[in-house]
């Protein structure tokens, strides 16, 4: 089981689709229940990863799976090359964790073509998981593109008024970036082949060891970075996001926010930065600048939105700015902050989208002006919304704070100090837009008669939110659960990025270095089996 864990996990949803196709199309409950079961089983399959202590000691790849897939001699080789390390671990967990929640959230929201919807959700899950566990650039690219398709349909078929525009925009926007990345991937491969470096298909671990000339790294980083920047999205490549989020059905928005955006940031951490470390210093000021602009810009624009969902969408731009800033600070604190902020954003913004979804299901509008005084009618909802709001603001004790703080801390310790100062203003702005919207929606008297009969959250809806709330506090209070498994991998990654992870002072941390180095030959051996 453990040997094939990643494959089973990745393709289990696909298996689910096969069964799903033969279920009667009219029985919505059965379809949803089945999908929920599939996603829960997938989650269960992935659970051993979260409890595996091997990640705390070694930053290398674990749960490796390696098969030759396409091998055309001197043309190219692609391998089915899976593995997971501390960096992808929690993103995998986040994915398997969030999908059942989204399935639950569709219970009343989706009534059109349920079978298709569920199939798309499961397909999306396979795509996301595959992208996180791929160690072969080619395989990664396939999963990366595979995610696009179900998301396109989710937005386009089950979306709102302007869904077609949003879906097509989403698709083409992201595809432009990823196609350029494809060129870069191919280039790296042939460069490596021609340089005679030991290769293992498009395996990134071998590609990490490449010594590309600066000029090539520059362009390659540009291509990779561009693609990932669109996905993140970084200013000014973000305009697909508000549209996609606003039009997508709740489940789509949640997954988009929680996982799909992480593909971009993950891509930076896993591919763009460690593969092209020499180009990194050239780009970092620029990218950090964009991140900071994203934080401030996203916040200011979010502030003035009249559609709650759009507001949350723009807030994502700001949040991911923190992630990127942390990652670009190239030290352990910043990277850890960025990584945990990815999870946080997934949880908090996912929860916000669910919350907007709850409102939308009840009132079929998301305009802030349509609401007001909802707190009187929906006290439980108000409480949950409040907690999530503060998590999103980054109140200490909630998850948001840990991520933001570490990201900023990392940035302050790096050359990005001045950027970080400006980024910190995002802390103020986040409070401004979130509290303002909260006030306008929840507080005040019920002025709109349509809000008189709002029902508070149902048990199902509370169940959806509870796990998210749990993690909001868990990460806020015991983030070490996560850091302990991320640290070794992050250190190794930072070394790969050409950065000194920490000025090693205490002997305690130098111990964790040792396995990081020794893991390298082990993985090399894996590659040639």
């Amino acid at each position, binding site marked *: 089981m453990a040997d094939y864990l990643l494959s089973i996990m990745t393709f289990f949803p696909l298996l689910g689709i096969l069964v799903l196709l033969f279920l009667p199309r009219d029985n919505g409950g059965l379809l949803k229940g089945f999908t929920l079961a599939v996603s829960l089983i997938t989650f269960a399959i992935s659970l051993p990863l979260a409890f595996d202590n091997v990640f705390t000691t070694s930053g290398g790849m674990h749960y490796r799976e390696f098969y030759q897939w396409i091998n055309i001699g001197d043309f190219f080789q692609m391998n089915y090359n899976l593995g997971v390390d501390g960096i992808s671990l929690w993103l995998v967990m986040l994915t398997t964790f969030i999908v059942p929640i989204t399935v639950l959230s569709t219970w009343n929201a989706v009534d059109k073509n349920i079978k298709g919807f569920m199939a798309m959700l499961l397909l999306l899950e396979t795509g996301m998981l595959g992208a996180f566990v791929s160690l072969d650039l080619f395989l990664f690219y396939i999963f990366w593109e595979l995610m696009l398709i179900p998301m396109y349909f989710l937005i386009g078929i089950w979306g709102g008024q302007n869904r077609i525009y949003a879906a097509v*925009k989403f698709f*083409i*926007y992201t595809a432009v970036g990823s196609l350029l990345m494809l060129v870069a991937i191919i280039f790296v491969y042939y460069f490596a082949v021609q340089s005679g470096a030991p290769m293992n298909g498009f395996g990134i671990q071998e590609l990490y060891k490449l010594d590309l000339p600066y000029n090539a790294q520059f362009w390659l980083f540009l291509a990779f970075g561009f693609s990932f920047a669109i996905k993140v999205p970084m200013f*000014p490549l973000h*305009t*697909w996001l*508000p549209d996609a989020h606003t039009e997508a059905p709740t489940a789509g928005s949640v997954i988009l926010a929680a996982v799909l955006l992480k593909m971009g940031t993950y891509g930076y951490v896993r591919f763009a930065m460690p593969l092209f470390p020499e180009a990194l210093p050239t780009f970092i000021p620029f990218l950090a600048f964009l991140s900071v602009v994203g934080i401030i*810009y996203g916040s*200011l*624009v979010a*502030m*003035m*939105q009249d559609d709650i969902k759009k507001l949350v969408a723009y807030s994502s731009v700001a949040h991911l700015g923190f992630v990127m800033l942390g990652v670009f600070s190239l*030290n*352990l*604190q910043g990277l*850890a902050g960025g990584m945990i902020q990815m999870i946080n954003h997934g949880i908090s913004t996912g929860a916000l989208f669910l919350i907007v979804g709850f409102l939308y299901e009840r009132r079929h509008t998301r305009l802030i002006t349509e609401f007001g005084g909802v*707190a*009187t009618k929906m*006290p439980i909802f108000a*409480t949950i919304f409040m907690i999530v709001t*503060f998590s999103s603001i980054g*109140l*200490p*004790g909630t998850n948001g*704070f*840990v991520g933001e*703080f*570490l990201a*900023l*801390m990392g940035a*302050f*310790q790096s050359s990005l*100090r001045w950027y970080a100062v400006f980024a*910190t*203003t995002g*802390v*103020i702005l986040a*409070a*401004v837009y979130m*509290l*303002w919207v909260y*006030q306008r929606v*929840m*507080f*005040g*008297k019920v002025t709109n008669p349509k809000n008189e009969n709002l029902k508070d959250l149902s048990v199902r809806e509370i169940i959806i939110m509870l796990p998210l709330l749990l993690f909001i506090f868990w990460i806020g*209070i*015991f*983030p*070490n659960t996560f*850091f*302990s498994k991320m*640290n070794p991998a992050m250190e190794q990654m930072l070394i790969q990025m050409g950065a000194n*992870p*920490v*000025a*090693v*002072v205490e002997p305690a*941390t130098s111990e964790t270095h040792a396995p990081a180095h020794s893991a390298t030959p082990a993985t090399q051996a894996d590659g040639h089996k």
Partner: protein
Amino acid sequence: MYSNLWLIPFFPLVGAIFNGLFGKKIKNEAAIGGIATGLMFLSFLVATQNLFKLIGDTEKVHELVMASWINVGNFQLNWEFLLDPLSAVMIMVVTGVGTLIHLYSIGYMHGEEGYYRFFSYMNLFAFAMLMLVLGGNALVMFIGWEGVGLCSYLLIGYYYEKKSASTAANKAFIVNRVGDFGFLCGLLTLFWALADKGVWTLNFVKIAESGHLLESGGLLITVVTLCFFLGATGKSAQIPLFTWLPDAMEGPTPVSALIHAATMVTAGVYMIARMNGLFAMAPATMMTIAIVGGLTAFFAATIGLAQNDIKRVLAYSTVSQLGYMFLAMGVGAFSAGIFHLMTHAFFKACLFLGSGSVIHGLHHAYHHAHLHDDPQDMRNMGGLRKKMPITFITFLVSTIAISGIPLFSGFFSKDEILWWSFGSTRGHWMLWVLGAAAAGMTAFYMFRLVFMTFFGEQKTAARAKDHIPESPFTITIPLMVLGFFAVVGGYIGVPKILGGVNRFDAFLAPVFEQAQHLNEIHAHGTHATEYTLMAISVAIAIVGIFTAWVMYIKNPELPGQFVAKFASAHKVIFNKWYIDELYDFLFVNPCKKIGTFLWRGIDVKIVDGVVNGCAWVVKGIGTGLRYTQSGYLYNYAVAMVIGAVVIVGYFIF
């Protein structure tokens, strides 16, 4: 030894969670209030026990590590508590005053919707505040720091159906966040600065130990401390971030007493005191703090002169008194500042609760008479001393205390601050002037308040006049206790010059002495000077009281004439120097405008415009090219010939 320290914040947390989750089910108000108050009292008991233990202990600084929190590389952060004399004083104030206010609330909040919610928030606040003061490192402190902001937000917005309440709540939180921005910047810069020297820590004790690694008076330390100070101004309502506090009076009165008088707003003072070692190393910052504190004391007092809302007067008074504390911090009188913090907690809480009692009574009366007059407007009051004797007496006592009349607690603390501001190595006589002027005004407007409320004719509408009751015991008992402390609270810190031993100073000495010593901060001057200054300040206070008596008792037409004469000045003061409007003009409106511009202008038009423009151009080119496909054979043949000619021609020529 001090391993039960965690219980102090833990009890209120339990109360908060319990009431928050199950309060709605419990219909019994007494049970809800009782649980909350009881848990606060338990916490108070533990705090007292620890205080006495600490007093008896020779080792004055104790850390308690609970668990590891964030552990990333060299950055290792724990959940840890710190008990030293400073935090001991703070926990006593918080739990003590907190318990009383909880008790008070049981009666005061009677019949309110969301009773459980109120107590849950109050307990949560107590928890946060205790985390703030007990936090062993800057981040645990920051949890409390933001936590009190959150609770303040929740409690100000308690009447969330009122627009003004929720707006005030937002304002409070957001302005606090501006301060937090400073705090975070300071913290992160400090961390980096220390990490640069090889010390990876946010632990207060370690920071204090390694503060000397930084250049004293250098740019770095100045920036760090200024950032921290910005944080403090936010939390403690100093210039320029004081505007939220008067608005915060939208919350229920116990909230004002607890949060916006006794505890939360003093967090900034506490924080500076906590980091005194760093601040002492940055004279420029210290001077800034002193000036800002002095100015705040002065300006808030001027605004207080003209307000008619009973709670707003108290709010400006609070701002003004906080200004004193900052003045103290700025001139290096750390223990004096903390001393004033404590005495202020007693008398200001008492004042707020007293005003709450008045409001409660009037509200009751209006309710009875079906009137909708504003129960907080002093112009509707008057002559209440007979109706509410206990309230009146405790209120009067506290007013005397705040005015700085000798033998009352406020006198000792305020006077020590004034003395330091004059005589400290970091002081200046102008600071003293500011402080003294503020003291005079304080005496004036506080007595104006007393006179308007309790003396003279009853101006309450006739129907309600006779229905003003004295408040119930749950309200008056806390009043009496606090009134008692407002009188005697000062005696633990009687200065040497008045024959005391200043036990308070001595108790806090381990925290501040080293920094004061290292940076040569001490007050110097002859006893004569000190006596003179003391006399002057007392005189000023008495003049203030007398003026108030003249204007509001003896000759009630005078204020009207006065206002008429200085109409414009009064208008400025009445409208709080137009600070709110200024901020709206400077920050709020531009932000909104920029936001709208960024969205409608940049985002939609330019950024998205470029994207859609690309699509449009591509499509346009496509449509254009499409018309080359004319359907006429001739054109196709021409294209082919052109193609062939160009291809062949290019390569053969």
